[in-house]
């Protein structure tokens, strides 16, 4: 379970003080598929980064399975990201020099785990890319790239998958495929939190949380 208590995030952008989050309270249960929506600049991505232990709040508590990560040192945050969290980005961020197989296996390098070929092939099969394992990212379509990124996000068996506008760069057909994969993952017991501007997909999520001006909108 993830619990956010009175999360505030302030930072400076040039001469300007930005209050990205202004007291967010949010609880996400295990196996939930949550869509986070809201206008640009509302604080969705900042919230996702805090949920993913990539950033820490200026004030408030972030409890992941009861452990407060708000004041954790960087070394423990890295460990938590490796063990419990998977990330998917709008721009995929695949490494061009690596094959699909190696891109999926990349997080294993950082968690010092051997690349289990069967497991990676299983993940590729799950996202429909078993025929593309030896291909370079440049040979993939946008949808295939995002599916590779999802497999990469799952390779460390995370408890939570965080997806920042995973369908933002995709057409409706590929968006549907991605959403289906995320939904299946939730059905298999994975907590999935997805930022989206797609109202239709948000409506089909288990729960939709709207962020507005750094707060959870009523």
């Amino acid at each position, binding site marked *: 379970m993830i619990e956010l208590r009175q999360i505030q995030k302030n930072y400076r952008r040039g001469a300007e003080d930005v209050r990205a989050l202004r007291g967010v309270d949010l609880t996400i249960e295990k196996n939930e598929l949550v869509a986070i929506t809201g206008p640009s600049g509302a604080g969705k*991505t900042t919230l996702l*980064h805090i949920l*993913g232990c*990539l*950033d820490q709040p200026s004030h408030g508590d972030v409890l992941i399975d009861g452990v407060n990560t708000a004041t954790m040192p*960087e*070394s423990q945050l*890295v460990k938590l*990201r*490796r063990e419990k969290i*998977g*990330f998917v*980005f709008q*721009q995929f*961020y695949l*490494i*061009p*020099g*690596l094959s699909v197989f*190696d891109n999926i*296996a*990349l*997080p*294993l*390098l*950082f*968690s010092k785990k*051997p*690349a289990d070929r069967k497991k990676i092939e299983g993940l590729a099969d799950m996202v429909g890319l078993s025929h593309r394992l030896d291909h370079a990212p440049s040979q993939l379509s946008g949808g295939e790239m995002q599916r590779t990124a999802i497999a*990469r*996000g799952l390779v*460390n068996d995370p408890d939570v998958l965080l997806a920042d506008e995973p369908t933002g760069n995709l057409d409706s057909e590929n968006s549907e495929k991605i959403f289906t994969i995320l939904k299946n993952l939730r059905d298999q017991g994975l907590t999935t939190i997805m930022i989206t501007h797609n109202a239709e997909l948000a409506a089909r999520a288990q729960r939709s949380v709207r962020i507005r001006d750094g707060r959870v909108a009523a």
Partner: protein
Amino acid sequence: MTSYPTLAAKNILRHRTRSLLTMLGIAASVGVLFAVLSFNQGFNEGLAAELERTGLHFMVVPSGCAHEVAALVLHGAVIPKFLDTQVMDHVEATDGIDLATPILVAQLPDQERGTIDLIYGVDMEALPAIKPGWQIDGRMPRSPHEILLGYEVAQHDNLKPGDVFSTPAAGIELTVAGIVGLTSSQDDAFVYLPIATAQDLLDYPQAATAIGVKVNDPAAIGAITDELTSAVPGIQIVTMGEVMNSVSNLAASARALSLAIVLIAILISAVGVMNSILMAVFERTQEIGMMRAVGASRWDVFRIILSETTILALGGGLVGILIAVLGARLIEAFVRSVMPFVPSGDLIRFDPVVALGSVVFIFIIGLCAGIYPAVKASKINPVEAIKG
């Protein structure tokens, strides 16, 4: 499965041209470093072998510059001074002398042929003792007008034993008795003739530019040279060890300058590596942010970037040594064309210790060049990086 070195290597291959150019810069610097260090070793070994081949322990020459004497001993430089004829009597009368032979080295212009012959007048009976390693095609001269030709002279004039060697001096006809086999040293460029004939040709009766001396007991060289120096005024005695030191000192000065230039070149290529890796880091900021998000620690990022630098440096270093070894003969030919004396034999030989030393050196330089970009990359804020 991707490992840190493979990931680094694949990152390098993403910018093939840039990586290749950076690597070539390192290869050039390390190749020259390896060549200079190997050359130093080969030069000293070649010099020692060359001096051993002379079969003499010391030279008696007119007082003057030690470098001049070194040049005389090693490549027959012309010294415009002659020993007094009585010096030979003193040397021969000294105890402990096994062999003393006057040597007259001079240039003999031949306007008819348009050449300048280098002549080496010596007692032909003493020649086998002075040049014990020579292979002679034909035989040693037996009469005053018979000569030996160095390999290059014979090749140049297309002469063989029994042929007549033309001289500018009227009434003197020289016959080639034998041709010295290739020595790949300055010996190949001389015409060897009995010293009396050389004196006649030059019109310097009784003249000698040096007296080559071989002693019975090499341990007594110091005592003998002291005795001669105090007994005969106006002479200088130079042992082969001193000749070696003299030439080595000259070579060491050239080497120090070359090394300084090579080190500057290495520094420049290290800056090139740093620049190349920094560019790669800036271009991959978002990718580094992604790696941090999926579990890479700062240390992981540091390692990847440092691996890229060391791969570039090591790759360049190995290629540089390979080029230096393969191009050794070309480098030697160049050095021989610009240096006044270079001993015969291979000057640049593959020495695993020198090669390993050069590689270790460039590895350390690579590590140093990589630290700044690696620290820079490891400090990238993943949140900022992912935002772009």
